[in-house]
């Protein structure tokens, strides 16, 4: 098979060079780029070693695939990373839009564009879950799989998260593993899975403790640091290097809290982001910090479930706990369930982190979110008396709303607020 890995390889090489530039020029900030390099390094190595290439929707737990000796690739995570590198993703969005309307979520049509381009290796199989959180993911993956004859497996994820649902999805995980084994010839190594889970649980523990430290005033963690950690947890949970990375982040933040130091010299405004971000320019965070003293102290994307994964000898319990994980995954649980559940969590997080304002930077493709935007805003105002800035944007495509427009909206918001 022709291993055409141009795009992924190019991104990997670009990230490596950024990482080494950081090491030379800003060694104290190199940690910001370490996770993305590691992620693409794993993809690069897997493809180079000829391991089957498995694309999975980001709300599925990567741990299970790490124990199957396959190359795992989440197009959603990659889309976020690539958007931050400039215009390289745009042509894949345009290619996808030839086939799928442009109102469908950009991050979900990205795999369609990637495959259509022929500039990357066609995956050996797809895995996704319906409807967790949205229709766009499932429609993009299922139609792409159908049109390009890519074997695919879809988990049927119930609307309601309860014990019956966890058992139901857990059983499907078993079927999914059998499907992957059949398609790839690789076997799930249960001992390896337990090991990956132990790493993942350790990372989760540090991740959640780091989240807790951000409740302090001032917050010990920068906005960008928060955002990078959330993405890395999504893509690298179960990888030992990531466990070490997140431990270091936690310890650095703990030390700052003990010294009474904050991430920025003067914290004036504490922000909680409840929808998406501005992936195409993470510099928005430093701009907010420098210009307004506004630090992001929490994001619903970082609201990782608190239950650890099960690593017992009982395989069905492990699958059930993986089901619990995906049904309670950030965004998955917010978009899939009732608006009441979502709104209650927005209020709780804003309150817990002592937010002064909430940022609803909503992806225009996120219908489940925009369809209750007013309800969310009003509920937060009623419950906590704090304002919410709602901005319609495309987190991965600056052509929809430019960074300048986004900044202007923030500026006007702070002018009214401060």
């Amino acid at each position: 098979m022709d291993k055409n890995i141009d795009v992924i390889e190019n991104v990997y090489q670009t990230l490596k060079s950024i990482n080494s530039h950081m090491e030379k020029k800003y060694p104290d900030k190199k940690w910001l780029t370490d996770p993305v390099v590691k992620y693409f390094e794993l993809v690069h190595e897997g493809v180079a070693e000829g391991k089957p290439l498995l694309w999975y929707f980001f709300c599925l737990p990567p741990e299970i695939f790490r124990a199957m000796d396959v190359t795992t690739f989440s197009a959603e995570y990659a889309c976020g990373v690539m958007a931050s590198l400039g215009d390289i993703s745009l042509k894949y969005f345009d290619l996808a839009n030839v086939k799928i309307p442009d109102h469908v979520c950009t991050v979900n049509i990205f795999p369609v564009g990637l495959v259509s381009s022929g500039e990357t290796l066609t995956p050996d199989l797809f895995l996704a879950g319906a409807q967790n959180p949205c229709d766009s993911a499932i429609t993009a993956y299922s139609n792409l799989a159908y049109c390009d004859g890519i074997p695919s497996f879809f988990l049927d994820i119930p609307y309601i998260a309860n014990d019956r649902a966890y058992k139901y999805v857990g059983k499907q995980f078993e079927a999914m593993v059998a499907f992957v084994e059949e398609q790839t010839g690789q076997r799930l190594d249960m001992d390896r899975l337990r090991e990956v889970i132990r790493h993942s649980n350790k990372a989760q523990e540090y991740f959640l403790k780091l989240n807790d430290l951000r409740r302090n005033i001032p917050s010990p963690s920068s906005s960008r640091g928060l955002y990078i950690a959330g993405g890395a947890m999504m893509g690298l949970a179960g990888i030992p290097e990531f466990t070490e990375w997140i431990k270091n982040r936690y310890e650095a933040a703990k030390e700052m809290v003990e010294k009474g130091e904050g991430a920025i010299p003067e914290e004036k405004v504490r922000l909680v982001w409840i929808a998406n971000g501005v992936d195409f320019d993470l510099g928005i965070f430093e701009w907010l910090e420098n210009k307004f003293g506004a630090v992001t102290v929490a994001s619903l994307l970082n609201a990782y479930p608190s239950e650890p994964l099960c690593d017992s000898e009982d395989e069905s319990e492990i699958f059930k706990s993986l089901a619990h994980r995906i049904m309670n995954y950030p965004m998955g649980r917010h978009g899939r369930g009732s608006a009441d559940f979502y709104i209650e969590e927005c209020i709780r997080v804003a309150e817990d982190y002592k937010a002064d304002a909430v940022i609803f930077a909503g992806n225009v493709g996120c219908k489940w979110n925009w369809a209750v935007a007013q309800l969310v805003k009003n509920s937060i105002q009623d419950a906590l008396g704090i304002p919410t800035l709602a901005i319609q944007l495309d987190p991965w495509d600056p052509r929809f709303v430019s960074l300048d427009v986004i900044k202007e909206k923030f500026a006007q918001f702070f002018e009214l607020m401060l």
Partner: protein
Amino acid sequence: MAADLSKMADSILNPFVENWKKQGKPVLGFTCSYVPKEIIHAAGILPYRIRARGSGERTMGDVRMSQITCPFSRSILELALKGEYNFLDGLVSMNSCECMRRMCDNWVSEIGADFFHFLSVPYKSSAEAVEWFRHELDILRENLEKSFDVTVTDENLRDSVNTYNKTRKLLRKLYDLRKEKNPKISWSEIQRVVVMSSAMPIEEYNTQLESLIDEVESRNGINNYRARLMLIGTPLDNPSNSEAIEDLGGLVVTDLSCFGTISFWDPFDSDGDPLDIIAKGYLNDSRCPRMPGRGGERHNLIKEMAESFDIDGIVFERMMFCNIWGGETMSLEKDMKELNIPMLIIDSEYAPGSEGQIGTRVEAFLEMIEGRAK
């Protein structure tokens, strides 16, 4: 009498529902063709499928759901906020699509509902999925029994399955009339009549439908058309677009749409455990692209219908901001191209006055089809 059915479809409330309410009997709104109306019916409650006909200009719906979500869902919310659905005694919702379930979230939050039940309907039709759905149906049954102080026996459920099966068979018969070279009933009339199948007591509907089918036999056939068309797409409860197509000489003969064949095409089994029959009946249907991984089955059905109704082209009406049908475009275009069936894609804003734009597109499409025939 049959003409009345067609007329009634143009308004949300109709004399049949008013009469039902006068008898003190409850009406439950439901949101999707996958909601099992048999169970609601078996509880002695009128299942009424909520729709957006007559919503007009949207203001309240747009403000609450923003203008980048499904306009059909926004229009329903608009009607609900205006009080058009005040006759309902509650709602049965499900995970049909993200906009519709969020519409219900807005509805319940702002208007409230004396009875609200959410069904978690699987996206698969495996044995495990059927079992899951059967359990969900049992919960619905129990909730209806408790909330409305009724008993829903297996016998009641069997009767309901049989009653709705009769509707399915009659509607198939109605559609068969469109297979004729010169059909005796217009598409816009069929569309209205089908919509009424979920807007009035089903026994009375079946009687009306039988009369209509008999009456249609004595009509003259339509012969001044330019092409035979199939409609595909999202909820098509508003016949004004179909009328625009008909006015230009497009003869719509069948459909694969949310209020159309997706909601009735295949009769259910009649033997066995009734909840099992209902669960399988709904999940086995692959007509809605909500069910992932079943595009091949769906497109084969389209192919079969295209042949049996002898169509010249497809009009694919996509609701703006509908992810499910939007994504379906990708595989549908590919397959229809391979089948050499011309397809026109229309994005519907579900707004009054869009017929003119649709007319222009349809005219060009009809000319193209006529050009192919030469």
